[in-house]
């Protein structure tokens, strides 16, 4: 879990991360939470029958992991203004995923202290499967 940060302490270029595990159990819990019961996410035989190497992580879950990291950074006094992600490639289950948010720009707009982030999920080999961007309002020190 990432700690909440203030606008003043964030540096452009600074990266924040969370590690997420992708067990089949976790994907089943997400299926129940989201209502996405497509079998490629929890049924090994179904996934392999659809020419996939194994069950794969739901794209929407990866998007919500990015939302969680941003929510943790914002803390109780900040607010996520927006975030977006693109599901560019698959993540096979049972491999840990790094969720990241790298500050790209600090600025003030209409009295709000804002930070733009490059966000996404990264595999162990360093490839980014779910790139995106975000803007978060952070509290001043």
């Amino acid at each position, binding site marked *: 879990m990432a700690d909440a940060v203030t606008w003043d302490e964030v540096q452009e270029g600074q990266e924040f991360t969370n590690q*997420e595990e992708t067990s089949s159990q976790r994907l089943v819990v997400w299926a129940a939470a989201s209502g996405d019961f497509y079998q490629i996410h929890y049924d090994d035989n179904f996934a392999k029958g659809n020419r996939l190497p194994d069950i794969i992580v739901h794209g929407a879950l990866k*998007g919500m992991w990015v939302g969680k990291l941003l929510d943790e950074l914002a803390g109780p006094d900040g607010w996520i*203004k927006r975030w977006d*992600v693109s599901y560019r490639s698959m993540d096979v289950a049972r491999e840990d995923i790094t969720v990241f948010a790298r500050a790209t720009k600090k600025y003030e707009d209409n009295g709000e202290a804002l930070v733009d982030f490059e966000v996404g999920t990264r595999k162990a080999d360093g490839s980014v499967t779910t790139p995106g961007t975000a803007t978060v309002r952070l509290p001043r020190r």
Partner: protein
Amino acid sequence: MELTPEMKAAIGKSGDPTTYEVTTLGIRTFARAVGYKDPIYFDDEEAKKQGHPALAAPPGYFGMPVYNPFRQNTARRPEFDSPFKRNLNGGTAVEPLARVYAGDILEAVTTLANLEILPSRAYGQMLVRTSETVYTRKSDGAVVAKTRGTGLSY
């Protein structure tokens, strides 16, 4: 192929409103699934201590559509005939505008913002569908979030 007249006519149209219920059970299940550790998403009393009127929903959670197998005659999004039958989730954008709480009833309206047929290395062609959804809280009429989804059909 190119967009059919029926596809072009669907751009800009909205589906029927869909009702979403935000419940304590739904919030806790979502928060657990995503792995939240903040007690305001699990503990009513802690949420109230921190100034919230009820259990808070994490960003991006808008409840679950009311499932009623006896009323399935509504279309959540504009429909059209398409030869691209298989679907992939291409991406999501979320703009949270107000905090959502347990007990909220939201109405979601999805508009087909754009359709494009693009070349695809893997599939020859893909239909790229961009949809925008506005979530409005029924009790006070507040727009609590806007989302944009990209669907890829091949």
